[in-house]
């Protein structure tokens, strides 16, 4: 990624568009913690449904009515345990889950009055103190002598490791980056994980013991799958996705300020001082998923004057939910649908604008195919998805589909002794909560397999 700060009049990309106080406010918690009274009143709104639709909608099947009732009854730590029983990363999920398309969409109060119980915020209310306490409420299981290699310290790998620890199985996590946490640490908007939450949650998970993290270790580069299979009793692959997709337009890789949104967000998340992070005056984001939204909103919060998000299809097809779109729009982001980039314009070797062709391509009503518009752009973010990275498997006999690993219901790959979960598997939902469920299910499957194989 090249970010070039140019002289005025040409391209305008620079750090420190806003003062420190404004930046601090812009990147504060999106939804502050509920007060005890607010939590109690909200908790009492829960109907304690039979066969609860919210729980069915939760990929980790948290017993939502029970934990909410525990909050209502003043048992906050008990509520936290109910959540962690199903989802050890209930803290981050409370912050980043698209609850509006999961539990809260299923809430019967949504049907009744379009005002669901705010399950996500209650979950955060329940889990925050336990995580702040820094100690997993679970005891490590009696040692079985079994060891599992986990590739990737993201949500899938961490959830797997914690569940294995409960079963008395040690794990070693191989992680290419400096910090554990995966996309929770590097890939999610800062205002959703304020106060270094992702890192604190990692410490909370590791506190159970029996989990070792080897940093700077990438599969295929520093460590080989066949070695892991040989040295460990089982392997869990949770390495996420690889390279970001490209537009395939001329000069895409040469022009300065054409930026991979995933990289930029990672840089933002790791920046100690946000006022040192350069951002364009006029920002264009191409894409329709959460990364596109996070890049667009955070650009605005960094002080970009105009931010336009352009998506090639309509709002119904967009991966980002209506809630996320509204968040972007109320943050000042303009969203344009049914337009695809046709040409990148540069002044010298620096981006100056993007030409779009708008049209519906035969999918729904929209502007006529072929009309063209141009957006001035000092910075262009590409957020058009990431590809799987099956090359890291070194040609192992693992079935891969569309670059992603095929697994069964227990998250077993087609290769004996290898499990996988999270964004790297085929059919995954690209959600933290799904990754956690994958890790948990895989760990249970691994524990069962290893216990059966015990001499």
């Amino acid at each position, binding site marked *: 990624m090249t970010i070039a700060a140019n002289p005025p009049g040409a391209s305008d990309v620079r750090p420190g568009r806003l003062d420190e106080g404004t930046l601090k406010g812009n990147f504060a918690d999106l939804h502050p913690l509920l007060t005890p009274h607010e939590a109690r009143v909200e908790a009492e709104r829960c*109907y304690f*449904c*039979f066969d609860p639709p919210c729980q069915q909608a939760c990929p980790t099947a948290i017993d939502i009515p029970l934990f909410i009732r525990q909050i209502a009854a003043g048992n906050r730590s008990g509520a936290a345990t109910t959540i962690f029983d199903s989802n050890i990363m209930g803290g981050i999920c409370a912050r980043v889950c698209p609850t509006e398309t999961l539990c809260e969409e299923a809430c019967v109060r949504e049907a009744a009055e379009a005002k669901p119980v705010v399950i996500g915020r209650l979950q955060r209310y329940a889990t925050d103190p336990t995580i702040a306490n820094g100690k997993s409420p679970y005891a490590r299981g009696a040692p079985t002598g079994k060891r599992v290699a986990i590739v990737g310290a993201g949500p899938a790998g961490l959830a797997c490791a914690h569940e294995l620890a409960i079963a008395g199985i040690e794990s070693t996590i191989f992680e290419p980056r400096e910090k554990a946490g995966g996309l929770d640490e590097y890939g999610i908007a800062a205002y959703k994980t304020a106060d270094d939450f992702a890192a604190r949650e990692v410490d909370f998970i590791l506190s159970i013991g029996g989990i070792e993290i080897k940093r700077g270790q990438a599969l295929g580069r520093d460590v080989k799958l066949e070695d892991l299979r040989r040295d460990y009793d089982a392997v869990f692959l949770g390495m996420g996705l690889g390279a970001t997709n490209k537009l395939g337009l001329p000069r895409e890789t040469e022009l300065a300020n054409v930026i991979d949104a995933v990289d930029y967000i990672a840089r933002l998340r790791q920046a100690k001082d946000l006022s040192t992070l350069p951002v364009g005056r006029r920002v264009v984001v191409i894409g329709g998923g959460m990364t596109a939204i996070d890049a667009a909103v955070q650009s605005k919060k960094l002080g970009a004057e105009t931010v336009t998000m352009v998506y090639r299809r309509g709002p119904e097809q967009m991966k980002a939910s209506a809630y996320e779109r509204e968040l972007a729009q109320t943050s000042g982001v303009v969203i344009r649908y049914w337009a695809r980039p046709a040409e990148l314009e540069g002044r010298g070797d620096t981006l100056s604008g993007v030409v779009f062709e708008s049209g519906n391509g035969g999918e729904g009503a929209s502007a006529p195919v072929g009309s063209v518009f141009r957006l001035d752009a000092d910075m262009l973010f590409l957020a058009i998805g990431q590809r799987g990275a099956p090359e890291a498997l070194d040609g192992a006999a693992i079935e891969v589909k569309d670059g992603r690993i095929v697994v069964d219901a227990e998250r077993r790959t087609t290769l004996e002794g290898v499990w996988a979960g999270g964004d790297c598997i085929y059919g995954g939902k690209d959600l933290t909560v799904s990754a956690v469920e994958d890790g948990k299910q895989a760990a249970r499957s691994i524990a069962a397999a290893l216990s059966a194989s015990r001499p």
Partner: protein
Amino acid sequence: MADLRSNFLSVKSPNPFWLASAPPTDRKVNVERAFRAGWGGVVWKTLGEAGPPVVNVSGARYGAIHGPDRRLIAMNNIELITDRDLEINLQEIKEVKRAWADRALIVSLMVPCDEKSWEAILGRVEETECDGVELNFGCPHGMSERGMGSAVGQVPEYVEMVARWCKAHTRMPVIVKLTPNITDVRQPARAAKTGGADAVSLINTINSIMNIDLDRMTPDVVIDGKGTHGGMCGPAVKPIALSMVSEIARDSVCAGMPISAIGGITTWRDAAEFIALGAGTVQVCTAAMTYGFKVVQEMVTGLADYMDAKGYATIEDFRGRAIPSITDWQYLNLNYVAKAEIDQKLCIQCGRCHIVCEDTSHQAIFARINGKRQFVVNEAECVGCNLCTLVCPVEDCITLVHKVAGVDPRTGLDYDRPPANWTAHPNNPAVHAKAAE
């Protein structure tokens, strides 16, 4: 507009809403504020005998239970009768009555259980030109330990005796205030009537400890580490009060005795319910202590609007109208059949009706129809118990429907059978015994 004027024992008030004997009616300044806000009358906080003033605790004297939004569900208190000097109270009562001639001013009394004490206080109170007296035989805390309050109200013979003394020593109307801390409220009510009392008022507060503090292992409201039971009032006590009022209203001995109803009256509707059970006036305390005196304005307008809507010109037009519908269980029609019906358009699929019926009642609500989440009553099992309608969060989604045609799949009997109650039911052993004679 409906005429809300009340004439209770010839005591007139512009509306039937009186403030009960309690802290809100402790002094002139409060009572005048209440009258300005629109209250029809007050029962002045209980006076005791002349002499050293009563001593109250200095610290929390009220406790409460709350809903999750801090809505007060019930309150209790350990306050005693007035701790102000008798002479000051008498002087203020006189001044207030002179200034507010159109309002009812009743004085509550509690003195030791001997005729001389009652004679003495009645003489003094009569001088104030107040409209009547209410004998406090109800307070369950503090004074009862000294042989007054509920200690009298729990012994019908004492009730009758004191009522008789009072009627002998005053020309003022005498209302006996009853305690609910008793098994059969009709007994003291009958005793009051036998003793010559003009009316009863009920209910006084209920023995209660509101909460236990699980950290300190004490009641949550304590005085220097110790607590005691208090008297409970507020919305939660209304059903108990309705039942007790109905018992007296239906009683052949007490029939026709005027009733001033008390117990959790918070809105016009609560008041109208007590009037429908025969109450001539209603007394309010907790609602005022929760919201201030202005609440009476909701009560007055609400009652008037209700009466207008129903075509009731005066309180008397609907007073007591619900009494004939209240009977003993044995007279309920056992051939009447109702079954629950769920309005699928209103149902929000919470499933509470199903799970409570399944777990705790008659397994009469299906949770799935053709494999799909849907809640439907199984008429072959439904006994019409009403539990589902009560737990349903959606108003009018579940209703009990009276079955009039066809055969009840649960019993195999026709829905349309002539009314029959337990007294003639074939399963009643007494019926067989009689037949065998």
